[in-house]
């Protein structure tokens, strides 16, 4: 076996366990670098006897830098840190280095959760998350981790201003919008109608900046539903954004002034909720033929479903 793996510790007493990919002609073999091959040989040997030692810990550090997706190494590392009673703050600093070197890696987040839970102190967390979201503002695992953190340490107060800032940077950052919904409703306490009003206003202001932005619309309608408000509350707002004028039974859209397709869609739902089926159908036809044609089948389905439902209950 090539001895390319060098560490501060002696491995002379260890008989490395070679990787057995399964017989003479295995599928999907990888031509590893020598140091990785040697290091994983030691890993299999020490893991098989669950060795608890500083050299095993060092081995996990080295392997993580060679392959940060190696989840067995991360799990073993966590067991070692606790068994050896290591300084967990040092570990958090080390994870920060790994995170910045491998920003797409997600194994670090489960590991960090395990460590921070034990460390029982979130002091380093928000700044680190901030750095990672600067690298990728929609990193799914970072946002999920942030939710865990907020729940675990009851950090709800910082969250609304934080999502303000993120949404200010990019009003189309859906992860930030989702986090805002979590920040408002995730605690599971009763929400007053004035909070619902505030959040609806917040979403409406964002929509006015970019009226085609699905993230803000989804938020607006999500808040509305959560607040048990009727969808017709948004009618005036939608009329303006869709440049709609209605006469008794027909809907007219000014194609030069319409700013939002979603406003049009919401109007159709409002008409349908009032059983103004013909008007709703006109809007769905407009969406299918002119404003959102790739979803033609969906608009036609809505149309058919509503007229069926209307017939059934009429």
């Amino acid at each position, binding site marked *: 076996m090539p001895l390319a793996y060098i560490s501060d510790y002696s491995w002379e007493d260890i008989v490395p366990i070679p990787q057995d990919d399964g017989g003479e002609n295995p599928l999907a073999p990888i031509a*590893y670098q020598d140091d990785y091959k040697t290091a994983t040989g030691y890993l299999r040997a020490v893991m098989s006897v669950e060795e608890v030692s500083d050299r095993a810990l060092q081995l996990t550090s080295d392997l993580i830098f060679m392959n940060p997706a190696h989840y067995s190494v991360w*799990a073993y590392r966590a067991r070692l840190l606790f068994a050896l009673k290591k300084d967990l703050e040092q570990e958090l600093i080390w994870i920060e280095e790994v995170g910045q070197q491998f920003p797409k890696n997600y194994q670090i987040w489960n590991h960090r959760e395990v460590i921070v839970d034990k460390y029982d102190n979130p002091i380093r967390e928000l700044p680190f998350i901030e750095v990672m979201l600067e690298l990728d503002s929609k990193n799914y695992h970072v946002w999920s981790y942030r939710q865990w953190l907020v729940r675990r340490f009851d950090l709800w107060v910082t969250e609304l201003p934080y999502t303000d800032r993120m949404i200010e940077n990019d009003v189309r950052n859906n*992860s930030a919008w989702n986090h805002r919904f979590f920040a408002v409703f995730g605690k599971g306490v009763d929400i007053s109608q004035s909070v619902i009003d505030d959040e609806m206003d917040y979403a409406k202001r964002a929509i006015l900046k970019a009226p085609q932005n699905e993230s803000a619309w989804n938020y607006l309608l999500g808040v509305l539903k959560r607040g048990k408000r009727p969808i017709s509350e948004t009618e005036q707002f939608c009329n303006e954004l869709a440049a709609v004028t209605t006469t008794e039974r027909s809907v007219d859209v000014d194609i030069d002034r319409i700013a939002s397709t979603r406003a049009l869609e919401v109007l159709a739902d409002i008409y349908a909720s009032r059983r103004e089926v013909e008007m709703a159908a006109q809007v769905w036809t407009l969406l299918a033929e002119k404003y959102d044609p790739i979803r033609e089948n969906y608009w036609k389905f809505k149309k058919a479903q509503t007229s069926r439902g209307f017939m059934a209950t009429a």
Partner: protein
Amino acid sequence: MTTELNTVHNEELPVVDSLITESSTTQDDVARMCAGLILDGQLAVLQHQLHADFLRIPMSFQLPPNYTGLDASKPWLMYWPLHALEILDPDNQTNDILSRIGPSIMACLNELEGAFGGGNGQTAHLAATYASLNTLAISRDEQLWSQIDRERLYKWLMSVKLPDGGFSMHVGGEEDVRAVYCALASAALLNIITPELMEGTAEWISRCQTYEGGIGGAPGNEAHGGYAFCGLAALCILGNPVEMIPKYLDVDSFVHWLSARQYQPEGGFSGRTNKLVDGCYSWWVGGCWSILEGALAWITSKDVLWSKADLQKYILFCCQSPRGGLRDKPGKSSDFYHSCYVLSGLSEVQHRYSFRPKMRDSKAGEWSFMWTSELESPDIVIIDEQNVVGPLNPVHVLPAGVGERMHDFYAALGTLEL
């Protein structure tokens, strides 16, 4: 070559925002790049041979050192290309490879824990177990199947089941809806589903549906195409999908969110609101459509709620790499993961799936093996003869008939005392 085509939507949308942000800049770039590759009035040809050659790389050569990042995903490095090869050529060009599956997958078994890991000597892991069992299903090797210690695997599954109804990926690992799907799909193949294994799980999935209508990785997390598929498919294993889906999901808002995933002019699907199209969502999002259309009575047999012709356009024009294999989007390299899920997406474009329960009182663990398929009508999508790929099981993401055969094998052995 030109064939009479169904309507596709290559033009820009009429209403566009003027505010520029990071999201809109990247979106505009991708839309422009895709539009540049899509030819009006034409169908591109699926490069069968080129893709097959690419997919055979892991069976013919040592993968280069830069694959070390997938060293903890060895069963996936077998499942992705093998499944894709079979979809590409249903007449089974993989026979020469099937006999090598046994030793290669069994090398990933963690004998101490009783389930599969990401490679030899690695910790047992739900995703690795799912990919291993799917690969074993593709082997069609009963001798091999009889070597699986199902009782121990069941015990391991119960050891990663959490009190809230979810599952963690491995002992001490992360809890998410992928883990739920992988656990249930594995248990269904092995016919070891029990009430204890399922307890609280449908309710947990239900909690993952977000205000947008899609499903997130865990309660509170952002709606995401991959997790949406995992949650929906898991419900189809837990019980009769006709009852389970409306019971545990708000179907209207789920359908609304799914519908918003298809972008014009690209034709492909994005995985989240305001993110870019990516070929892999051809399956994750498209698979959700297959399941919904096949299982829910309120969609009559003629309805397709999205544009199959546009997705086929995106796959054929934008996802084929000139060096072979399928990719995320133009400008990206092909890989085995994308090849698997883009081709699975093409399969679902070309087929119509139906849920056909054999009997009213089917048992838990049988529901996911009652799917049939037929070729899609040319009114919906023109399928050029050169572009045809095979059908699959839309819950297990396996070539049609393969998972069914493995499940039947274990069912015939009688009930395990678990």
